[in-house]
């Protein structure tokens, strides 16, 4: 009898304690709306969110539409508003088609974070952007990467995504500036910038056209995962891996075969994991009042160091690009 009541009392005490804890720190619900499903890039990003939420005690869920079409995320955002989540993190499929629905989310007190890409030109419709790396440096880093592969000499070309892809365009500007201003790259000539629209077929056609139009081409930079894979495939099929060096931004899983067979020597990418990690710390800190969302403000994030809120409330992980090559590619799985 005594034992029974003791157990009961203990159970009651425990349940009250846990109830009190849950009440004291009402757990923040964060949802991440991806571009589309079946995109391994986001698995790593989601992992970053999940690990951070394990530490911070937030609830996390990942949802995504079937296609990356401009309006496909709208029903998902509305559903999350209806679920009364606290934070919507989103990798936007459109720079402006989401404005109205994001506005509604924010009116209801939901924190809106654009993750892994910004809604350039519509910044007032999100609270902050979490970017993977310092985008200002991506262009010059890529030129340096290709330069090191071709001894800083010869004709090079860029194969990008769409003509209006905001991130890629920013990097291309960076590449052009580096090529023009840095004497180290004086012997490298940019002969063409073409666009594969992030479609495998069109990217392949454009890469083939580059090889046939510019017989002296020494290298292709493709700052997009679809483009770099298509370029590598074309160079591999044409048996020109020795003459034309392909590099750019790609994911390890996608580029693994080309690294293994020597078609591609090295390529780069940031760690999407860090973005999820940073976004969670930022959201939780902001909601708890320990972080102020003002340009110039700084805050600490474990493993990433001191993070600064830049112009237009854009934040990056401060981590540089990771270079993947035959030595390290097997350490990554995304």
């Amino acid at each position, binding site marked *: 009898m005594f034992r029974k009541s003791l157990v009961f009392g203990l159970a009651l005490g425990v349940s009250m304690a846990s109830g009190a804890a849950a009440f004291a720190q009402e757990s923040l619900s964060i*949802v991440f709306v991806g571009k589309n*499903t079946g995109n391994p890039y986001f698995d790593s990003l989601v992992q970053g969110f999940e690990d951070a939420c394990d530490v911070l005690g937030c609830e996390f*869920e990942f*949802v*995504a*539409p*079937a*296609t990356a*079409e*401009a*309006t496909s995320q*709208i*029903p*998902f955002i*509305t*559903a999350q508003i*209806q*679920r*009364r989540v606290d934070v919507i993190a989103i990798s936007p499929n*459109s*720079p*402006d*088609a989401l*404005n*109205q629905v994001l506005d*509604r989310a924010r009116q209801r007190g939901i924190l809106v974070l654009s993750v892994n890409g910004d809604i350039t030109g519509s910044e007032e419709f999100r609270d902050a952007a979490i970017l993977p790396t310092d985008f200002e440096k991506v262009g010059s880093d890529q030129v340096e990467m290709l330069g090191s592969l071709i001894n800083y000499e010869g004709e090079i070309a860029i194969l990008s995504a*769409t*003509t*209006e892809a905001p991130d890629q365009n920013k990097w291309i500007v960076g590449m052009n500036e580096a090529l023009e201003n840095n004497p180290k790259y004086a012997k490298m000539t940019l002969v063409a910038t073409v666009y594969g*629209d992030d479609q495998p077929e069109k990217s392949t056609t454009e890469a083939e056209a580059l090889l046939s139009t510019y017989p002296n081409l020494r290298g292709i930079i493709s700052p997009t995962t679809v483009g770099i894979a298509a370029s590598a495939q074309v160079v591999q099929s044409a048996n020109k891996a020795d003459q034309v060096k392909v590099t750019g931004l790609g994911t390890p899983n996608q580029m693994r075969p080309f690294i293994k067979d020597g078609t591609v020597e090295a390529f780069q990418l940031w760690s999407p994991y860090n973005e999820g990690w940073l976004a969670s710390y930022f959201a939780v800190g902001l909601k708890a009042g320990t972080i102020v969302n003002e340009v110039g403000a700084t805050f600490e994030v474990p493993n990433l160091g001191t993070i600064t809120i830049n112009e237009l409330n854009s934040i990056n992980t401060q981590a540089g690009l990771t270079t993947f090559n035959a030595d390290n590619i097997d350490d990554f799985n995304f």
Partner: protein
Amino acid sequence: MSGAEDATTRTPPAADAATPRPRWQVILVRPETVTFLFLIVATIGASWLSPFFADVRYILESFTFYFEFAIVALILTMVIISGEIDLSAASMMALSASLFGVAYQAGLGIPGAMAVSLLSGVLMGAFNGFLVINMKLPSIIVTIGTLTLFRGLAQVIAGDKSIGKFPAWFIGIDYRFVFDVPIPVIVFLIVSLILGIFLGTSAIGRQIYQIGTSPIAARHAGIRVNRIKYGLFIAMGLVSSIAGLLAASRLASVRYDLATGGELQMVLIVMLGGTYIFGGRGTILGTFLAAWLLVVIATGMTVANIPINAQLTVLGLLLIVSIIATNAIHVRTQR
């Protein structure tokens, strides 16, 4: 019908004639009944899946995402009943909306740009009609062709940039309310009602069914088959451009890839509503119910955070089940 029943009670039926179906069967065993039952089951299921679903305001708001396809599906129902199909509607939406954006940017003002858009819809519909009726080409092939053509033209005209910066009064039709009901929902109700009465009771409405059942017999019966079909294709173009404008208002921007893949959703709605793909049978009521069915299923599963692949699987299965049901019921009633 009652006359037929009287006849069978008085004189013994011939050995090979089927007995007429009881009245309750005629009223209840219809494809729309299946759609209606699905709608009830889906609503119960969705409420059970997520506590956030059963909220009228939310369901009506979610309807506005499918509204553009739903309103086109109403006209598409009549096109399919007449024995034709139009798969180019989503591309017509994109091209007319792109023209609207370009015309507005060129300084035409919203009313002028809207006129350009609506006119382009009529012309695109007439172009489909010309190819199908005058050139005597199958509408499925013609509209697959114009699907690509109109989308391509939209990209040529609008480029791959978004066009936006419309005035505030034009933006957000989905967030204007009359008695707490979003305007698109009201528009859909009214248009469904008008088209339902038109198709069900008017002479032209009945002729559309006859054309779909047998175009040759219809022609012999003096029905102006070509004129009616032309009218239907033009109506498709017009309603597509209206849908394009509504999408432009909802999204506050237009792009050449607006409504990409929408033609399949439109056909899905019409098929879920029990319209017979080979023509001659179907109702506006069925399409009306099916639009809500699609909204309830998609919304219910999205708000329950059910992965999209599971959602697509459910929709696909539902489509197959409803096509089987539609076929079975039509075969049964044709005996």
